[in-house]
């Protein structure tokens, strides 16, 4: 386990994706390696000064994509995609506009029903996956304090009624501190800038403490300084053994921070270690992807074959 960060099953594809097999655990962090090798039942990870206990039983949160086709009005946006996001992997999803990146995340979350194929989640329910949408449809003028917005991250555990006690509050304040918004707890959300709002959403993700985290263009319209801070957070999550999938556009960022890359152009051009995914040939191939929407397209015959 954990020796390569993808498996691809596009055997019947005409233009086959590059298959890159690697024996080195390029796409996985050291922590996961230690865990999957060791036989201990629990692992403790130091995160932000607070020890976080993660049950080993729920540590294998791989996401299996099996011949998945997702789309709108039966036109595929993700077409016959197969592979695995290994537990504890840190994967960037890149590709041109309309390549199906956000669609894939929605498919994993179960918001979008597959047209065919399936997404299998190991040891986790779709509702437990933390997700940062491309443009969170936040009510901009909503009278809510920053602290309350972050406390919202406890929802899955607290539900509608459990009291927000001192510990939960402390966690939210700690989260605010780790995203660099220490003094902001009692500010109202509507007074924040776009970048600050994004930091708040990251703080909420911190509080959510989910084993799988999906980020859809988390750094769009964010200055480099903020992006650097938030990238450090992502690394920390990775170090804690969480499975992270991020849709990104900045290829430099991907090169320097993400061990694993899925280059998507409706189908996977490459799904493997970043160094081998971001080559000039692959990028040229991606550019040639047609964005055309043909109303009279023929039915895809792959299911039949």
């Amino acid at each position, binding site marked *: 386990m954990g020796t390569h960060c993808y498996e691809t099953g596009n055997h019947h594809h005409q233009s086959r994706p590059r298959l890159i097999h690697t024996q080195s655990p390029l796409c996985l962090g050291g922590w996961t390696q230690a865990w999957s090798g060791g036989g201990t039942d629990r692992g403790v990870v130091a995160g932000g000064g607070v020890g976080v206990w993660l049950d080993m039983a729920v540590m294998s949160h791989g996401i299996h994509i099996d011949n998945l086709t997702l789309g709108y009005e039966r036109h595929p946006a993700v077409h016959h995609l197969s592979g695995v996001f290994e537990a504890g992997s840190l994967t960037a999803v890149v590709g041109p506009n309309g390549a199906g990146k956000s669609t894939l995340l929605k498919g994993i*979350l179960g*918001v979008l029903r597959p047209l065919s194929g399936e997404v299998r989640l190991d040891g986790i329910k*779709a*509702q437990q*996956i933390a*997700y940062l*949408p491309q443009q*969170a*449809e*936040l*009510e901009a003028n*909503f*009278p*809510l*304090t920053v602290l*309350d*917005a972050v406390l*919202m991250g406890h*929802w*899955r555990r*607290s539900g*509608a*009624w459990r009291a927000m006690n001192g510990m939960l509050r402390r966690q939210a304040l700690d989260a605010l501190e780790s995203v660099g918004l220490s003094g902001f707890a009692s500010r*109202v*959300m509507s007074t924040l800038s776009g970048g600050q709002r994004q930091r708040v959403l990251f703080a909420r993700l911190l509080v959510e403490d989910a084993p799988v985290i999906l980020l859809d263009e988390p750094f769009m319209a964010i200055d480099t300084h903020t992006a650097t801070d938030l990238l450090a957070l992502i690394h920390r999550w990775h170090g804690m053994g969480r499975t992270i999938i991020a849709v990104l556009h900045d290829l430099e960022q991907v090169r320097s921070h993400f061990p694993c890359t899925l280059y998507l152009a409706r189908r996977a051009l490459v799904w493997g270690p970043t160094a081998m995914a971001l080559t000039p040939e692959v990028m040229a191939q991606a550019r040639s992807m047609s964005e055309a929407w043909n109303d009279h397209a023929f039915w895809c015959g792959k299911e039949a074959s």
Partner: protein
Amino acid sequence: MTLHEILLDPFEQFGFMRRALVASIALACGSGPIGVFLMLRRLSLMGDALSHAILPGVAAGFLLAGFSLPIMTLGGFVAGLLVAVLSGVSARFTLLQEDAGFASFQSISLAVGVLIVAAKGGSVDLLHLLFGSVLAVDDAALLLAVGSASVSLVVVAVIYRPLVIQCFDPAYLRLSSHRGELWHLIFLALVVLVLVAGFQVLGSLMAVGLMMLPAIAARFWARQVWSLMLVAIVLAILSAIVGLLLSFHFRLPSGPAIVLVAGVIHVVSLVFGPRGGIWSRIRLNNRHYQEC
């Protein structure tokens, strides 16, 4: 005329004024928080739509059982809930947005209601249903108003957290809870309940005014959800008291009098409210804090 005569005598001397006062204070408490949530979810006009929607139920109850409050109330509640659920379902399973669903189903509902009333009763009944008669509140109407206000307050308290999350970040609740639709449905049922409770006292059209005007005016005075609710309730109670007194002294219909007072409060808040009112914007136009 002494102040005592103006403010207290009407209530001391006349039982119907006391009843009217208690009923409208109860309605103010019950509908204030609901109005705040409707406004925060940009559904301010939905109360209006639902108030039209309950009419055929009330009219059908009237047709079946004559002027019987329990039957008419039940009919109104069922009709309102039906329109709310149909709109929700059409938004969930078709490409329509929820407001489009409300617009279409409430029109249908209203037309059915007017037909029923026209077929049976005269226009006087219709006016009564639409605008109510706060000065003819009997024990049953009083109990209904107070009872539904209590239910509304308790349920809002119970589902407060999911409602706030749903207002602020609806997608988040949808993804992390499989009960997102349930909270919404409970909330819609509360809107219908409070409107139906108000129809006898204020009339279905005026009940919306008491629900929305104080809630929207509160926006200019408070900046958190709970304080908005508190301010909305206080403003609604104030409107009810002043409106009732005006209607008593000047022989005005009470429902419109109460709502008009709420309207005056709203305009005053719009101009003088410290949080984003017109005056505060002009006054603070050139002043700002130091950079820190």
